[in-house]
Every structure is written in C-alpha cells, then in structure tokens.
C-alpha cells in the first residue's frame, strides 16, 4: 500500500445535514461523512468531507489489517475499538474548545453581575463532562453513533443541559458544596447556563478544529493497544502508519444540494440534487426507474432511465409543507428528537386523519388534535401519511411509479413514513418493488461523487457546439 490514492468526492449540502462521499477509482465507496448544516455552509461542507476522509482512512486500515496475517485474525474487534477511541478523541478535542469558548463567554458584560457564579458552575459542568467523556461509559454512547442526529452539538447539548439542571437543583456531582450556595447567591439560573452554551456551541461549530485521522489516530491507537505486548503494538502502529502515510489525492469534487450555490466550487463542479439523487439511486439499485427524495426543504419525484439519467421530475413549490422540516417542527412541538417520531407513530392503533401538512400550522394542528383527546402516536401516524400523500401527488405528476422504485433522503430512515408509502403505493399502483438503501441519506452525495468521476467527458457541459 503505497503511492497516491486518487479519489472523487461528492458533497451534498442539505438544509439539515451535509453529507460527503469518497469514491476510489474503481467506483467503490471508500468513505462517507455527515454533519449538521450550520450557518457556515462552507465549513459544514469541509467537516463532512473530513469525516468522509476519516472513514476512507479507516477503510484503508481495514485493508492493511486484512493484509497482515497476524492482525487479520482479530481485525474487526480491534478496528471497532480503535474507531470508538478515535471518536472519543474527537469528542474530547471539541469539548476542550467548548470549555474555552464558554468560559470566555462568561466574561461578557451582559453577565457581569453573575460572572463569578457562572464561571464556577461552568468549570464544574465541564469537569464533569470531561470526566464522563474519558470514562468508559462514553463508549456505549459513542458506539450508538448510527443515529445521524447525533452530532457533537446534540451529544454535548443534552449532557450539558442535564448537568446544568442538576447542579441548579441540588449540589450532587458538582465539585464542592460551596458552588451550590454561590449559585443561589448570585442567581445563576439554568437559562443563564444554556444561554452561554448556545452562544459557545455556535462558535465551536463555526471555527475549524483538527478532527483529522492523522491528528487524532495515534492517541487513540495508544489507548487501544495499551497493555498489549510491545511487539504487537509496534505491528499495529506500522499498519496505522502506512495508512497515515498514504497520500490521497482528491481529483475532483462535485457539490450538490440545497446550499450548493454557496459552496466555494466552480460552476462546472456543481450539480442539481435532482440529477444527483437520480444517479445515486441508480447506483444503489440499478433497475430503479422512479426515485422519491424527501429532504428537509423539498420533496422531489424523479424518473430516470436505464443509465440513471433524469427524464422527468417534479418538486414541491415554494411551500415546504410535507417536507422533512415539517417533521422537525412536529418533533420540537412534542419535545422529541426527529428520530423518535417514526417509532412512536408505529405504535399507532387508530390513525388520525390530518388535513394539513402546512409547516406554519404544524404546531396548531397538533395542539388541536391533542386537545380533542387524540393520542400522540395516532396523530403522528396521520401526519406521516399526510406527508406521503403529498409526495404521491408529486410522483403522479412526474409520471407515476415504475416497477422498481427507490426512496431516498432523510425521511427514508423513518419507519412510519416508509410504512405509509408502502400502503399508498400498493393502493394506487399495485405491487411495486420499493428499495431503501441503508445509506439512503448519502444518495445525493453519492450521485455527486459519480458525476465527479464522470469528470472529463462531462467537461463539455452546456454546448458551445450549439452556438457554433
């Protein structure tokens, strides 16, 4: 394993999450990365790419381990543990930054009157967070990182607020009983603390931090191989070193998605997400002819031909009713995470008929229903069906649903939405093959990476030949 590895990258800048996919020259997916889209799109794109690079390096490490007879025997367990520890390193790095920024925020004039109390409470909270992060229990938390909503912001946010609440109510766990009393005297409230957190997390998210494979892997490796015989440790070290030493050349990157215009890419390296979803879905399921993508801001119904080329599409108009964002509002309204909505809706026994999927009225509709005595799960089942009904209208307008049909985008991970879709497809079109890739959230980025790979013959974009 030496020489330069050439790769093609696709970045899908969505309204909620930003995804990146790295393809090797044979077209195999080498790495994938995802992060929450923040106000700084360029940075979100860079972080997703970095994540994809990290996962590409781990893929290279897999290859290196497999090639070593000795290491290959226990490669999976080692690799998973290393990955967990690597994530832990990343988490601790970000937490350190969050601490610095939070303490700096506590010096702002706005909170002058409670500064001392605030500083004390923040130190206690961060001490506790760091202890937790370094304790083995973090491993379980980090291991469940399958959930795409689990970004640093979410993980740190829930832990911080738990501690902020607890240290306000009682002094247990916070370092030293004096803090509690001080907190009361200086009136540091839960809201004060969360105010600091909200300000700090934005800064942390919007400044670059070293989360690279190269920058964090050695510490992780040390921890991972701690206690092993030195010869074996050395062997692992060599495997990791070859991966670190491998230079990866990103031949071309193509951007897509809602925020693609804001990416610092050449116009020629930007593709519509409609084309990318078509091509990505075709790659995931080559017989696909119809694609439904429900993203945060828009819903798209796409028809593709045998090579993944879009032949027709329809999307929602200016109104984001029935898009992913709508589920976000509902989740906020119910004080739940978006990923909790589907499972709850699946428990429904008696679906409520929902008439409006208007994002603006989502909260009102929900409160009306609750006040009428409907159960949350039944309302949610109705909401999911309403979303899919809107999508069905777009599908019909785009030309219907062909035999092989693929559902992509964040909402494709939602079991209740999938269930409603299956029912409605069956009712309206009869038997159809519905595909959902476990990596459906990456479909757009995959399509973009494939466009990047098509590269050169694609250069002759809009035809000068026409004008000639």
């Amino acid at each position, binding site marked *: 394993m030496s020489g330069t590895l050439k790769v093609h990258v696709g970045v899908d800048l969505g309204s909620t999450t930003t995804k990146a996919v790295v393809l090797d020259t044979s077209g195999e997916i080498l790495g994938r990365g995802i992060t929450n889209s923040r106000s700084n799109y360029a940075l979100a794109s860079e972080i997703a790419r970095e994540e994809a690079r990290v996962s590409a390096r781990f893929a290279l490490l897999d290859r290196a381990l497999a090639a070593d007879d000795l290491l290959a025997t226990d490669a999976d367990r080692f690799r998973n543990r290393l990955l967990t520890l690597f994530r832990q390193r990343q988490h601790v790095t970000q937490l350190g930054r969050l601490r610095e920024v939070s303490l700096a925020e506590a010096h702002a004039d706005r909170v002058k009157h409670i500064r001392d109390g605030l500083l004390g409470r923040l130190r206690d909270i961060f001490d506790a967070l760091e202890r937790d992060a370094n304790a083995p229990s973090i491993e379980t938390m980090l291991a469940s990182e399958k959930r795409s909503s689990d970004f640093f912001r979410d993980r740190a946010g829930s832990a911080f607020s738990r501690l902020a609440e607890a240290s306000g109510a009682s002094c247990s766990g916070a370092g030293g009983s004096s803090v509690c009393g001080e907190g009361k005297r200086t009136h540091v409230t839960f809201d004060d603390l969360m105010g600091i957190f909200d300000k700090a997390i934005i800064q942390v998210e919007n400044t670059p931090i070293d989360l690279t494979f190269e920058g964090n892997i050695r510490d992780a490796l040390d921890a991972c191989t701690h206690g092993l015989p030195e010869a074996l440790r050395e062997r692992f070290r060599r495997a990791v070193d070859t991966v670190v030493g491998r230079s990866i050349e990103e031949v071309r990157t193509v951007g897509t998605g*809602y925020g693609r215009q804001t990416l610092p890419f050449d116009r020629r390296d930007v593709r519509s997400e409609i084309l990318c979803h078509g091509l990505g879905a075709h790659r995931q399921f080559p017989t696909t002819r119809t694609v439904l993508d429900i993203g945060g801001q828009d819903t798209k119904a796409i028809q593709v031909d045998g090579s993944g080329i879009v032949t027709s599409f329809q999307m929602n108009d200016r109104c984001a009713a029935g898009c992913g964002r709508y589920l976000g509002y509902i989740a906020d309204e119910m004080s739940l995470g978006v990923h909790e909505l589907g499972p709850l809706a699946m428990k429904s026994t008696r679906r409520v008929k929902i008439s409006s999927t208007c994002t603006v009225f989502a909260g009102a509709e929900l409160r009306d229903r609750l006040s009428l005595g409907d159960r949350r799960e039944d309302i949610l089942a109705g909401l999911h069906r309403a979303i899919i009904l809107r999508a069905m209208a777009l599908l019909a307008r785009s030309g219907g649903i062909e035999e092989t049909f693929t559902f992509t985008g964040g909402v494709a991970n939602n079991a209740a939405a999938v269930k409603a879709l299956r029912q409605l497809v069956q009712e309206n079109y009869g038997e159809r093959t519905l595909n959902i890739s476990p990596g459906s959230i990456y479909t757009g980025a995959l399509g973009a990476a494939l466009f990047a790979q098509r590269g050169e013959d694609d250069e002759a974009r809009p035809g000068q030949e026409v004008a000639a």
Partner: protein
Amino acid sequence: MSDSSDTEKAVAAHAGSGKDDSMEKQKAMTADHFRALTRAREEGKKVVYTFVPGNLTELMHAFDVLPVYPEINALQSAMRQRSAQFIGEAERSGHSEDVCTYVKCDLGMIKNGNIGPTGEKLPPPDLLLLSYTGCFTFMKWFELLRQEYDCPVVMLHTPYQSEGRVTDNMRQYMVDQLRNEVIPAFERLTGKTYDEDRLRECLRKSARAEDDMVAVLESAKHRPSPIDAYFGGVYYIGPMFTAFRGTDAAVDYYSTLRREIDARVAQGLGPITPEGEMGPERYRLVVEGPPNWTSFREFWRMFAEEGAVVVASSYTKVGGVYDLGFRHDPEHPLETLADYCLGCYTNRSLPQRIDLLEQYMNDYSADGLLINSVKSCNSFSAGQLLILRQIEARTGLAGGFIETDLVDPRYFSAANVKNRIESYLQMIDQKRQQRRQSLGGSGGSPPPPGSTPLFSPGAEGQP
C-alpha cells in the same frame, strides 16, 4: 407596456444602429395613450375597458373610443412592486386566495385611486366590453367592475374550439353578435354610426404590422436567436396586443423593430437581456405559460445566466396566433374579427395547443419545453402536465415544469424556481451527452416512462 425599469432600458438597447428607436417609439406611444386617457373626459372621448385575448381594438378605433386593459394594469402594477399591497387589500375585502391575482390586483388598484402606470389617474369606464375567450374569470371580473362603476356591459362570446377547428357556424354566431350587440352598443355609447370603411382602414394597418411582428418572432429560428421570444417577446407584442393595433404608430413601430432585429441577425448577435448582451447561446427553449411579473427581471436572469434563450412561447400568442398565417382581412371586416377572437391561444383546444408547441419545438430547433405554471390562471394551467407528457413523448426532448404566479409575489420562490431551472438545464445536458455517446449521434431519446400518447400527432388539424 412601458415603465422606466432597468429591464426596459436594457431591452431598449435593441436597435442594431446602437440607438433604441423601437423602444423609444413604444414608450412614446404608450405615453400618448395614457395622456389621452387622462384627458378623455375633457375631450369628450369615451373609455372602454376590455381584455387582451380577443380584443376588438380596430373596432374601437373605428368608433374613436379609448381602450383600457385591466390585465395590463395588473402586470404593470406588479412590475412596479405594487401588486402585493393591492392583492392584500382585495383579500381583506373578501376575495379568496384562490382568485386570479390579476383580478385582485386590479381591484386593489381601483381602491387605491386607479392610478395608471404613468402615475396619472385612469378614467372610469363608460362601457365594459367583455370579450369572452374561454376564461370564466373574465365574466366575474367585469361583474365586479360593473358593480364598482355602474356602467353598461356588452358581451362578445367566443365559442371554444373544442373540436379543434373553427366552423362557419361559430364564425356566423360571432358576426351576429358583433352586428346585433357590440356595434349597437358602441353606437349608443358614442352617438356615431358604424363606419365600415374606417374599420377596413384599421384592419389594413393591422395586417401590415402583423407581418412585421411575425417576422420578428420568427427571427428566433436563427442561431443564435437575435431575440428572447418570451422575456423580450412580451415587449414586442405590447403594441399589437393592446391599444395600438390598426394604428399608424403600430405600423411604424413594427417596421422599425423588424429592421433592428434584421440587423442583429445580419451581425450574428444574440438577444439583449437586462444585464446586457447575452453570452453564448447554450439552450434553446420553448416556454408555455405566462411569465411571472413580480420578479420579471430576476426570472429572466435565471435563464440568461445559463445561456438559455427562449425561442418560442405560447404566451406571446394570447393576443393572437399570427404565425400560423392569420392576418386581419379588410375585405371581410366582421368575419376577420371573429376569426381573430376564435384563434387566440387560450381559445384553442388542448390537442391544438400540443400540436402548436410541437411545431415550435421542431421549427425552432428547441432543446426542450419548459412550462411555467402560474397559480392564478386556469386558462393556461389546466392541462399543462398533459401537454408536457405529450411533447416529451412526441419529440423525445426534455420537459420541465416550474410554478410561479402572475402578480402575487408570495408565489415566487426564487430559490425553488432557480433550482428547478438549473436542474432542468442540466437534464438537457445529460440528454445531449447521452445522444452524443449513442451511436450515430442523431435521433431522439426514447420517450420517458409512463407517457402514453393520448392524442396522436396531427390528428387535430390546424385551422
């Protein structure tokens, strides 16, 4: 159609000589017309409100009355960014969100003093000439105006071409209405007797201007097209579709415009856009449906920036489909007015519209058909998806669909529209690439899935 927007200034630079003769002329004509309207009362002139499709402008000139077109007022209000307020007022007074926004904009404008595009107050109508060409909203609109102004209404009912052709019966039915209803109403209004020679004279001038206008629109068959036949097109059709058909001013305007465009063709120039000369022509599109007026310039830019030029559009046929050969005929004055009304684009059956668009796709060597579906207008929007599927199936070229509104800014989402236009143009790129890669490189792509021809090409003859 004149306001002092940047768009207009840019379009005004159209003259091949570097001067903007035609646009200056159009401006002057419009200014004269509105001046005449403000002085109508004192000069004892009668004012008639009427609609663009199926307008009887020559007959009005023959009776020396001044026409006002509420649709034009509405789109002018939108271009001056007044429509949101006007529509809001109409909605507050009880008009539903679903009512055509031209109507609400007009009602709001009336409530705000009926100030026209030149900043002067428009006179109230002495007569409402309801030329009905298939849009039911027209009837309701003038019902409201009648209530507002308490003035007489005369209706000219144009039968829809449901069979895809104009029959002698239909024509006779219209001539009878003209003779027995419309002309007597004008006689009562003006106290003058109908002077057929005067009407013939106007019709003769119409035909001359029509020849030149068709030549201008058909100049888009050249590569590169010297005009944008949608965004630029709305300026070119202005005088013909409104108060000036049948006048010397229109004859002069269109011969000037034609000279300017001919000069552009000779020099191999493309269209002028609000941002100046357009870059290389990359896409040639046929567009179906009216434009959005509230973000007209931004909308145009989305096309121009990508090198997309509209080579033919159905909207520039709402006030008459002249390129199929119809000309006003002074030898048969009332019959020709009947034929004119019967032939307007929105009075044509869906199969006829599809045939016409297919013809445009072929004659103008287009890369695709793009439909702008406006929320307001059922006359246009009903059946547009069918049109799209049919054109895709018949031509194998890319079809695209965007949604906006005429004059309600709430229905123009720039990000959404831009996204769709870009996606559509990239779809065309891919189709081209596919065609290049396929052996031979000629021939269309197979029809898209799920499109079954409902109308067979050519089954419905053009009149």
